[in-house]
Every structure is written in C-alpha cells, then in structure tokens.
C-alpha cells in the first residue's frame, strides 16, 4: 500500500451559480496518493486547476474529521461515496481503483439549491430546527443536572438520535428527497428525554410543518437514508416521529403533552 498512487478520471458537476445551468466536466489526475482522503484529492484537483489558470471546483468542507457535517458530495451514485458510515472527508482513496472514472455530483434536492459547483445550500435544516428543535429554558433557569434521573437506556437512545450531524445525506440519498430521517432524529432526541416532554406535541407538529414548507419529498420507507447516514441514524426514529405526529394530531386542540417513547 505504501507510496502507491492512482491515476483517476473525474467527472465533476460544474455550475456557476444557483441560476446557471450546470454540466459535467472531465478532469484527469495523474497521481493521487492512496492514503489521501477524498477531499484531499479534490484539493489536488484544485491546485492543478489553479496552475492551469482554470477556476477551482467549489465544494463544502470544514472539520475534515467527520463531525461538522459540512462536506457533502454524491460520489459514484452514493451520498458521501461508497463506504458505509463514512463522511466524504473520511473517505480515503484506497477504496478506489487505479484508472477509475469517478462521478462527483452535488447533493440534489429542490430544498438544497446548488450555490456553486458542488456546494449546496442546506439552511432548510436550520429553519426546521428553528421551528421547534429546542427546549424552552432560559440560561440560569435550570435545576440540578441530577434532579431528574434519566434511565441509561433512554439517555443512550437519545444520544443515538442526537448523533445526527445534519449533513443532508439522508435527503440526498432518498429517492423522494425526503428529510424525514433528519427531522425524526431531532424530534426523537427530545421525545426520549424528560426535558423534551412539555413541548413535545407542539414540537412535532411545527417541525413537520416546517419540513413540508421547505419542499422536501415524502417518506416511502425505502431505508436508503439509514443506509447512507454517516452516523447510522436508525429509521426507527421515523416510525417514532410518525407515531408522535399521529398522536399529536389526534389529540389536537389541547395543549397537554403527549408522551411517546418505546
């Protein structure tokens, strides 16, 4: 493996702006180290383009350690590429073949408009969370952290839901461009904790409403989201959201909390 490098052909989506029409461009890279990450490969491409006097490819990235959720990319027909449980920044070139042609596209969804090339606007996710993804508690207003014991299983499950990094791979991978996995993970985190109960019903209704307003598609339970999620968020969250949503609608009118948990 040491000192090996790959010769690659890249088919990259280029689009000047949200309004512009995009198209694929072909590029060749002569020597990509196998231990480089996919984004480092993109860096090499950009260095090459700059040297050739061409415009570098715009793509989103930041922490490069798989947690900020900024990187995206649809690589060879898969969100974040072919490795399971991996963000693009943690995808390494050793998983590609010498001479391979790699197709790189932006995450595609009406709710994620392309800003430029491979960078898309995911602020729809922010707006969904602004609609209710919080507990109403002012700073300084909190009881002791151990005042309410939380069963370990609930805390762990809430954590599993809270592990979502908001990258949007679920939307990108879903054939309907649905955001249900994202929204359900957020709702579930609060649904599983006592702190989330008082506002549970309103939260479910308003976050789902916000999701629909953003123009995401509907969930048809294909499970692609779970399979493509770099953090392995389970579709059980979606079932929980569905349950909560139905319960919240049925109990409509009242403002009392509807507790849902497994």
């Amino acid at each position, binding site marked *: 493996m040491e000192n090996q490098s790959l010769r690659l052909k890249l088919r990259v989506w280029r689009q000047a702006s949200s309004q512009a029409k995009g198209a694929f461009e072909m590029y060749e890279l002569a020597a990509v180290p196998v231990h480089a990450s996919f984004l480092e490969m993109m860096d090499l491409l950009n260095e090459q383009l700059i040297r050739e006097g061409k415009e570098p490819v715009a793509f989103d990235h930041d922490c490069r350690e798989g947690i900020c959720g900024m990187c995206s990319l649809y690589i*060879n027909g*898969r969100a974040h590429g072919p490795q399971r449980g991996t963000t693009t920044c943690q995808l390494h070139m050793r998983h590609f073949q010498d001479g391979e042609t790699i197709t790189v*596209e932006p995450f595609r969804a*009406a709710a994620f408009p392309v800003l430029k090339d491979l960078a898309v606007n995911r602020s729809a996710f922010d707006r969904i969370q602004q609609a209710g993804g919080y507990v109403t508690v002012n700073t300084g207003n909190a009881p002791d952290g151990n005042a309410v014991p939380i069963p370990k299983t609930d805390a762990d499950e809430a954590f599993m839901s809270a592990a979502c990094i908001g990258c949007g791979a679920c939307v990108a991978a879903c054939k*309907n461009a649905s955001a249900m996995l994202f929204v359900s993970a957020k709702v579930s985190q609060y649904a599983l904790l006592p702190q989330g109960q008082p506002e549970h019903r309103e939260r479910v209704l308003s976050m789902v409403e916000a999701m629909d307003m953003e123009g995401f*598609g509907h*969930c048809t339970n*294909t499970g692609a989201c779970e399979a493509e999620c770099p953090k392995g968020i389970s579709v059980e969250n979606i079932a929980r959201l569905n349950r909560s949503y*139905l319960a919240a609608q049925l109990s409509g009118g009242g403002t009392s909390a509807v507790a849902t948990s497994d």
Partner: protein
Amino acid sequence: MMALTGLFLILFLVVHLIGNLQLLAGDGGRRFNEYSHFMSHSLLIQTVSKLNFAFIILHVLYSLWLSRQAHAARPQGYEGKPALQTATWSSRNMGILGTVILLFLIVHLKGFWYELKFGAVPSITYAGAPEPLHNAYQVVRAAYAQAWYAGFYILSMVFLGFHLHHGFQSAFHTLGLSNYRYKPLIRTVGTVFAILVPMLFALIPAVMHLQSLGY
C-alpha cells in the same frame, strides 16, 4: 394515506384469497359458486366492496401525487450509478410494481367481476338449493384454460409479492407501529405474507390450468 389504504387492501387480499381457494375444493365448483352467490347478495360485503374500490382508487391517486411530490423535491436527478443499491429493489420500484398490478386489476375485473355482474353467465342448480346459482366456477375455469391468461395471472402475482414485500412493513412504519422490538417481527411476517399470499393466489390459475390440460 398509502399505509391506511394499503393495509385495508392487504386485509382484503386475505379475505379474497380464502374465498378463492374454494376453487380448488375439488367439488366441481359448488362451494365456490355458493360463496360467490353469498358475496354478491350480502349488503355488508357489497358495501365493503365499494369501499375497496374507493381505496384502490385512493391508493393509486395518492401514489401519483407522491411521485409528483418526489419529482418536485428533486427536479434534477443523479447521473452516477451506484455499484451497490442501499434500498431494496421493491422499495425503489413501488410505482412500476403498482402499475403492473393496476393493469392486472383491470384485466382481472374485466374478466371476472364485470363478466359475473354484467355478462351472460351460465346458471347451475345444485340439488337441495332453493334457486339456481351463477356458475362463476365455469367462467373461471374457462379463463384459466387459456395459457396466456393463467401465465399473466401468475406473473402478476410475482409483482404483487414484491409490492407487498415493501408495502406490508412500510405501512406499519408509516403508522408508527414499528419499533426496535417489533421491527424484526413485522419484517418476518411481512416477508412470509408477501411470499405466501401471492403464491397461493398463483396456485389457483396454475392448478386449474393443469386441470384443464387433463392432469
């Protein structure tokens, strides 16, 4: 909506299958014809039947709306083709599967329901029966004697199987009835259902076609 209508249609399939299996009773069709008569003269069954048609139409209309939504949610598709699909084939192709099943339904209804209701159906009088009955069995047997007809039925049941394979567990998921504990159970029951029910349905044309060939 897909889940509620779907679940109703799944229930209907069970009832329908139990009735139809009487075609294989080996009594020259008497029990089937009696059953058929009962079904067409029961107010309750007739109401449920109307409801059933409504649900089929709703199921189809809603699916059309869903695909339009999906298209609107992703106006521009992907070009990259994955080496490995992450969602099951049936879940990705519910529309195609459903369309084939709809075609089948049209042929099916035209062939039997329409024939029995509005066509010229021969009558048969059983000993001890108060009145002559429509010989529905006769109609069915004649239809299944045609190889292409029986073949089309059997093939359609394969499509139905795939449709159910996704639809069954998906319905439970959408209604929020699935969780970590029950999911494996729902999956298993769904898979068994998706294999067993279409297989038994397909058994009828298969057996009757073979019977018509004299086996």
